[in-house]
């Protein structure tokens, strides 16, 4: 897989003046790359490291800590659906929702549908307990979700 696009590179450079250290741009850079390519390839890690004057191992160390960034062998689908399983959602059907969605899409948490449309993820508290059970589609929350109306929710967050 190729590394950074010119656009991603320009966006990363825009972040540099915000911080007194280049390393602080690591998380913004990882987000920029993953939003564009649905993963952070090894080539991208190397090029981010070059821009930030770091070793690729340092970038990889940070990237792998969060469990949020995907390597190129496991890219994200078009929509990443996080289903909350923490206590407030569990008490109102979060675990059942997760099981129903896994069955509906025929994938386990962490996997992506074969058409590349949906990645299912398990989330810890999403901060929308007033609307439990809740999910996160890419980075937008959906509240009071049930398996029957999930398709509509996915359409609301293209």
């Amino acid at each position, binding site marked *: 897989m190729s590394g950074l696009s010119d656009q991603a590179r320009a966006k990363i450079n825009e972040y540099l003046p*915000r*911080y*007194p*250290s280049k*390393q*602080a*741009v*690591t*998380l*913004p850079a*990882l*987000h920029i790359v993953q939003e564009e390519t649905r993963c952070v390839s090894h080539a991208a890690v190397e090029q981010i490291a070059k821009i*930030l004057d770091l070793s690729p191992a*340092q970038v990889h*160390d*940070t990237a792998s*800590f*969060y*469990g*949020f*960034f995907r390597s190129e062998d496991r890219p994200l689908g078009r929509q990443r659906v*996080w289903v909350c*399983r*923490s*206590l*407030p959602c*569990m*008490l*109102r059907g979060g*675990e*059942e929702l*997760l*099981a129903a969605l*896994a069955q509906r899409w025929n994938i*386990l*948490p*962490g996997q992506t549908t074969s058409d590349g449309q949906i990645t299912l993820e*398990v*989330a*810890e*508290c*999403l*901060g*929308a*307990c*007033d*609307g*439990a059970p809740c999910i*996160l589609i*890419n*980075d*937008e*929350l959906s509240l009071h979700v049930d398996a029957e109306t999930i398709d509509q929710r996915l359409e609301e967050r293209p």
Partner: protein
Amino acid sequence: MTTPFEPVLLKRLGKPDSVTLASYRRDGGYQALAKALAMPRTRVIDIVRESGLRGRGGAGFPCGVKWGFLPEDHSGPIYLCVNGDESEPGTFNNRILLEEDPHQVLEGIIIGSYATRAQVAYLYLRYEYGRSYRVLESAIAELYDAGLLGKNILGSEYSLDIYLHRGAGAYICGEETGLIESLEGKRAWPRIKPPFPAVEGAFRKPTVINNVETLACVTHILARGADWFKTMGVPKDPANPRDLGSYGPKLYCVSGHVEKPGLFELPLGITARELIDHHAGGVWKGRQAKAVVPGGISMGFLSASELDTPLDFAGPGRVGCLGLGTAALIVIDDQTSMVDVLYNTCRFFAHESCGQCTPCREGTAWSTKILERIRAGHGQLRDLDLLMEIAQSMGTIPGTTICGLADGAAWPMKNALTKFRADFEDHIQSGKKSSTRTLVGAH
């Protein structure tokens, strides 16, 4: 006869265009900032100290005192970090504040930065709050256009930049030194203290870290004065010289088994029972509460007989909970097994332990495995002693970990095993299996 409480922090919710600068200014917005900028910055710290404002993020440390810890003679830079990594299960008040009324938070950030001499403030926002991020982006752009951010704010000598910094889904980034490490581009491993961030924080410079709700309170304290703030809440206990009081309004999150989950703003010190029965519509389906989490899951559990505990900074601790935490109530009805509840909390902490300290990394993982065994019908009574031993040996209180995550993991275990022991013994002795579905591979 008490007069009905008039909301302070949630006052502007539901107004059309509540997020815009024009609407905020129509309601008197940024007058508190103008007032602050006309004072010596140390006067701002004094006012916040006099108000008794304590941090809303969980630890309850007095805000003005924290600001006062910064070294006076430091040549700078000094940083203000805003902790918007709200991730404690049950807690969602920062999200609502930021999504619906971002300017009262931003005004508090500018006032706090002025008071602490910070010329750069970083707002660390959890990634999951995408809508908050976009609302804040446009609100900050409005501020630069209006001369309320950037060089010479409102024509004063003071200049400030605010930058948004997005997290990547890790609970530990809400721990203040974990947040700093994450901001610096590293894995979010909390730092050993001292040095405290006020002395050596972000980029090795003096740093203050404040919660979103705390800074929203600062705006109103500057607008209306320290004495006004102290008319709300629970005064200092005169019999206890160490008590700092619990002043001001508080955003209580209520979720779980209630008819109307939601965010309720009330003076500090309301009881769990009042919140559930008078504000959240009561326990759902006509049932009774078995247990209530008083302040996010790391604070432990109130039993049904403890629901009249005042939810101020001192109340939950008097009945064996860890503290008020984030004042997020999670109501658990009498049809729910505490075995399932405790399994859920242990699994959370096992997932979120950063792995740096062995007692936490291993303790959270083993407690989850033991509870999996109990849930599967293979538990033994001696497992309960083992769980208690784990709970008592991890955390900053026994002195075995760097940060408080493990104390938060231990507290629900201690409370559940003492206050609800019968649930565990019945489950083990009957040999039954938990009925709640959990997915294989969902870890």
